[in-house]
């Protein structure tokens, strides 16, 4: 039976838009890599510690990576961890960093720029920059994103190399995330958490097993698990995540589930109709 394809499109569109507007919150089971990432920040970092958050993705994978960045930033800020933001992805990493940081910071009015967090902007040549930062971050990023020299920013006074920080979080779409694990962690020992897109997540399990990573948020699903953990631990963030209009991984995951189920339902339906309406004598194939 032929259904007008527009009916299918309609279903898909509704299946996408409704969960974006109304939170459904289908249950998510927490997987160990995400739990590891959460525990690292929750239990092993103290108030006042520094975390480096690197935006290694662009607008094309923002639906997957942005919720991870948001959840990690919210978690850090709620716990009083100071955040240094950088961007290493050439195609729009900087604009993502600016957008997400501004969005999250607006939820925490008590935070001061230059004291509690700082955005150092984009640097070309990711791998070289990552190596150089082990020697001197001030040489890699002479100024922050606004052109202010680093020495004028209180937070950066005591940060020179990876040794002055407790954690690196990379939200990655390409190979840059792998470099954090197999280059920065391997050579300089700083713990690394990576949030890759779902497509590249399988590669990262090897690094996780080799203890080169302290946690892994695989794609939208990993992000939604992290959101669940954060919401359960911080009532204030639960409120934030209940804000209508805010795009979260939980919503994204709902959309994924629903659209997948719609497609499966249509396929199954199509086959049932096909078998019931099939003429008795089987055609030779």
């Amino acid at each position, binding site marked *: 039976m032929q259904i007008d394809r527009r009916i299918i499109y309609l279903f898909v569109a509704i299946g*996408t838009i409704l969960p974006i507007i109304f939170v459904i919150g289908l249950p998510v*089971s927490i997987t160990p890599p995400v739990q590891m990432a959460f525990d690292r920040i929750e239990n092993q970092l103290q108030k006042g510690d520094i975390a480096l958050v690197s935006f290694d993705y662009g607008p094309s994978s923002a639906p997957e990576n942005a919720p991870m960045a948001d959840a990690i930033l919210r978690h850090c800020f709620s716990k009083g961890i100071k955040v240094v933001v950088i961007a290493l992805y050439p195609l729009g990493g900087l604009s993502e960093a600016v957008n997400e940081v501004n969005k999250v910071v607006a939820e925490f009015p008590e935070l001061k720029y230059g004291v509690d967090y700082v955005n150092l902007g984009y640097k070309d040549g990711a791998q070289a920059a990552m190596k150089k930062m082990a020697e001197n971050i001030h040489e890699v990023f002479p100024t922050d994103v606004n052109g202010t020299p680093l020495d004028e920013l209180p937070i950066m006074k005591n940060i020179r190399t990876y040794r002055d920080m407790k954690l690196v979080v990379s939200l990655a779409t390409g190979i840059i995330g792998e470099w954090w694990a197999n280059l920065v962690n391997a050579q300089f020992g700083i713990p690394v958490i990576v949030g890759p897109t779902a497509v590249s997540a399988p590669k990262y399990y090897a690094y996780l097993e080799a203890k080169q990573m302290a946690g892994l948020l695989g794609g939208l699903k990993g992000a939604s698990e992290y959101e669940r953990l954060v919401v359960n631990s911080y009532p204030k963030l639960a409120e934030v995540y209940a804000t209508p209009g805010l795009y979260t991984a939980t919503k994204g995951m709902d959309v994924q589930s629903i*659209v*997948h189920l719609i*497609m499966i339902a*249509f396929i199954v339906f199509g*086959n049932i109709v096909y078998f019931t309406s099939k003429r008795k004598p089987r055609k030779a194939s």
Partner: protein
Amino acid sequence: MKRQIPLLLTFLAGAIPTIAFFVPQKHVGLVSTTLDSWLIIVAGFALLLGVVNVVQMNTNKIKRQASGWPYAIVLLAGLAIMGFFGVAGAFDKFGGIATRPDGSSTPFDWLYKYGFLPLQGTMFALLAFFMASASYRAFRARNTEATILLIAALLVMFGRIPFGEMVSKWFPLATEWIMGKPNMAAQRGIMIGAALGAASMALRVILGIERSYLGLGKGE
């Protein structure tokens, strides 16, 4: 002559990187990389070939007032605006084509961000709809092959969502297994075969047997 020179050129140009692949001598590598740098420029020149064709076709359309000619004006307008700022940017007018040092957009960059990117993103987003309609139509258990296709697709789709995991732990595992073993095996087979086919095609081109791309016909 008209036929032989291009074939000789192809042969020579094809031999250079092949030799450079095996011989690490500096000058051999240099010949190869120099040629490479030339060809990047040739490809750059080629774009204008396309632009000339587009302008020709669309001005013709407007002249003849062929059906849909107003759209040709829109097209040319888009081309002219963006092209103008692009060329001007090359002469360092309007601050080039990227963002200015203070973070503000140059006209070219602005058009890119607010014209080009959203349109591109929207086209890309259409894919999800098309996947739904294609899967509905194509995944029918018509015969053995189609049934295998259908089952593999359903299993993987189900195993990718949390719902599948809730039903049984085995769905994500099965998905991973299918992707990692049979899928990988088939992809390898395709890749090996296709790489051999491509190499054979390449050999035919270098030897001048395959020459239709030059418009030289098949005869010898």
